[in-house]
């Protein structure tokens, strides 16, 4: 299969379709540890929004609390951001999208922020299919509070201090599937190409795009015995497919022998070309998606890539049937009923 057009990470001078340089998508200097997986993810986010040519003004960034949740300050410096409270970012993001459906929301959370204190809001976010990108930077521990086990730590994985995780890990992808999520993917902070394609697909998707990205904590959870260490994940990553993303604004012909590649067209007109690696995996087949998660987990592997996508599931705002114009900017005339309405109501009450 040959594709073209997916631009390689852009060299300095280069500009994207709206004439901006990559630099325009950068954020503040990271205060995370050198080598932290979270930084690698921030870089991919910068590239993805650059390559998709999204206006920063159209984007809002949200997060909870944690090292991972600090990262929105380190990308898209010209977008509005909200570093909220621990584990409750989904509700804030939901309210924000209700206020302005025209925006593109990207939320960054951690495995503690999402899997522990925030699992309740995660569950209900997935059910609602709120249009947003929801990234979990998953390192199996609480980085910011110095390395305690998180609920995504695998059974048997050990902490530096020797403590062994003895509870079943929460598999956020499996959970998301159960709850009706419309876009479920897993990736690894070390797999630049896959992450970039998935991020662009997430931008193109309408609905909640949940990305569980294994992102090693080099300070507290990167040692021998940890199943979230860089080397362990590298050795146990099992890509489901080779992904090429073709954005709606580039019309590119892709030719391949039929059967080997699956094309998935996304909400904004972009297309995903999935070259099958693991058997003939079909990410639009829910039972298959569920099976691959459990089977790979049973083998102690991480199945990565686009696990499930349902491009046409109506998002939360569609279900609520709200007007096209952002609720936040409706004119007074549209939100304050006229005198007659109040009179009518008063009459009913007489």
């Amino acid at each position, binding site marked *: 299969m040959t594709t073209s057009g997916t631009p390689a990470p852009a060299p300095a001078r280069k500009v994207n379709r709206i004439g901006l340089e990559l630099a325009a998508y950068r954020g503040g200097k990271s205060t995370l540890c050198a080598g932290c997986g979270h930084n690698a993810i921030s870089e991919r986010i910068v590239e993805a929004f650059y390559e998709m040519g999204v206006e920063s003004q159209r984007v809002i960034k949200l997060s909870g609390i944690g090292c991972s949740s600090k990262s929105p300050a380190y990308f898209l410096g010209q977008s509005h951001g909200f570093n909220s409270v621990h584990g409750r970012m989904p*509700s804030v993001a939901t309210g924000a999208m*209700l206020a302005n459906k025209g925006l593109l929301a990207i939320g960054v959370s951690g495995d503690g922020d999402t899997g522990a204190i925030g699992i309740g809001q995660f569950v209900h976010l997935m059910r609602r299919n709120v249009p947003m990108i929801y990234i979990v930077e998953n390192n199996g521990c609480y980085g910011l509070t110095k390395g305690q086990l998180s609920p995504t730590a695998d059974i048997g994985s050990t902490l530096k201090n020797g403590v062994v995780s003895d509870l079943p890990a929460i598999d956020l992808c499996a959970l998301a599937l159960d709850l009706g999520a419309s876009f479920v993917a897993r990736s690894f902070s070390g797999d630049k190409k896959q992450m970039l394609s998935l991020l662009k697909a997430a931008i193109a998707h309408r609905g909640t795009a949940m990305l569980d990205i294994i992102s090693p904590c080099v300070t507290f959870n990167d040692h021998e015995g940890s199943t979230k260490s860089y080397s362990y994940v590298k050795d146990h990553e099992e890509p489901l497919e080779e992904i090429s993303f073709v954005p709606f604004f580039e019309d590119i012909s892709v030719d391949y022998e039929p059967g080997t590649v699956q094309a998935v067209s996304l909400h904004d007109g972009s297309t995903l070309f999935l070259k099958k690696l693991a058997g003939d995996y079909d990410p639009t087949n829910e039972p298959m998606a569920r099976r691959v998660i459990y089977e790979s987990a049973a083998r102690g592997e991480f199945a990565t890539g686009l696990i499930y996508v349902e491009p046409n599931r109506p998002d939360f705002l569609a279900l609520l049937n709200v007007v096209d114009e952002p609720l936040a900017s409706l004119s007074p005339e549209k939100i304050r*009923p006229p005198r007659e309405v109040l009179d009518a109501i008063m009459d009913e009450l007489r």
Partner: protein
Amino acid sequence: MTPPELAVQEAPTGPVTTPVVNDFSIQVATVNGSGSQTANLVLLRSLFQSGVPVSGKNLFPSNIAGLPTWFTIRASRHGYVGRKKEIDILVAMNPETARDDVLGLEPGAVAVYDEALKLDAVRDDLIFYPVPFDKLVAAVCPDAKLRKLVRNMIYDGVLSQLLGIDLSQMERALGRQLAKKAKALSLNQAALHAGFDFAGTTLRKRDPFVVEPMSATAGMILIEGNAAAAIGSMMAGVTVVAWYPITPSSSVCETLTTYMRKYRMDKESGKATFAIVQAEDELSALGMALGAGWLGARSMTATAGPGISLMSEFTGLGYYAEIPTVIFDVQRVGPSTGLPTRTAQGDILSTAFLSHGDTRHPMFLPSSPGEVYTMAIEAFDLAERLQTPVFVMSDLDLGMNLWMSDPFPYPEKPLDRGKRLTPDKLRELGDWGRYKEVDGDGIPYRTVAGDGLPAYFVRGSGHNERGQYSERPADYVANVDRIDRKFRHARTLVPPPVIERVAGARVGIIGYGTSHWGISESRDQLRHEAGIATSYLRLRAFPFSPDVGAFIAAHDRVYIVEQNRDGQMGTLVKLDVDAALTPRLRHVLHYDGLPLDARTITDEILRQEGRQP
């Protein structure tokens, strides 16, 4: 509304011959889920339609069906709408409680009851009117299964006859109630007449209570406070509503939903100009409201005590990150779950200081549906003006009971969207910082995503004027000092107290919310029964205006009347006014979950005044 010369001759208890006109309380004791609501509302409306000032209070259990419920209707030609402690007329329909209900009456009171209960055996100092409900209902309702639903209408008929309530008013009220249900309507009409005729032919009137038409309710409406909150929020232009069901607040958002679906659908597109979401819990509800407030939408949530506790962390975020939203707290009794279906003013202190760290929040204190309506509108304006969460402190009595009200005025003031940065303002300011003091009132200018103006980063962690992350001691102090300035500035923005100074009065009373109704009636009692003149200050918001201190300074003793155990508003007043004034403050506290009645206040003030009642 309360001419003294009338007030002195309030309904005396004990059997008398001189008629007592339009001045009595009726209590209907039933079982919840037994469909007595229609009968009770018809009774209430028939009085209202007759022009007689009336109020209705439902005392119901915290379950769905099968437990004792009491509905109290008060008619008062003086216009008193607070709860009346004494019951003049009991309608005993609940076998389980009938005996206690009767034992609880004052001598001379009236008891209408189901013959079968033989209540006249319980005591002999009452006026008994036995009614053969089963016999009467059987006659008018052949289908046994339906009898339960119409049975209650019989006591309406009986009372219409006994009290002289125009039957046509009852029929009109009934027709309005069951407009869409022809079958039920005719059955109930039959029952109504059956009761009326039975009383006419069989019962001899021996009580003094009579109804005479008045015109005191002309043009008025009957409404619950929660419905008023809903109408006010809709007229305020709310667009994002997130809530989680909890008694007694649920009907705020449920009623709002009904009105919005009817009146807030966009003409052209037929789509909703709003989003109402039932969240998974209160933390999420407030999180959604804040997310929407952040992006410039008018957002709200409504809850009760337990929800307020759960909203604690997010409220602190809203305070410190300076995000507008409106929170309705319809207060109920108690810490923890407490008494979910009883009324109180018990969340005042914890709400004023809600969340850890140095925080304080503005609160509106409505007394009537009309005020809930106007304050709802003001609350949305204030929230955006101050860029902070604003609370409207209602309670179960106000929120779920029926009140007379003048029709609500259409809001003449345009929406105040607060200090939003504009391109011009940006040019004028030169350099803008989200959290930078500009006008000396502590309120900075804000931008919102999508407005094309500079973006910033909101965070609950330390930040400088530009919203950048900062742990610098000076940045932190400057920021929280400005926020405190903002709060003090709010004193000038919230509705001032309503003050009634009485020349020569040495005693002052401070009250707020639904305590107002008991207080104003009690002031008449104090004047007429004990010759004590009182001035009165009714708080309408926190923070307080300076008038509060001046009012206290002008009186020797000031009684703060409220519905909680710990004198919560008194605490806030004590902290606010000049320390030299605090020795004058006294308390009248009521916290058993029943709406506050005048007699309780009067007795307690007389006691503290050394005048044994």
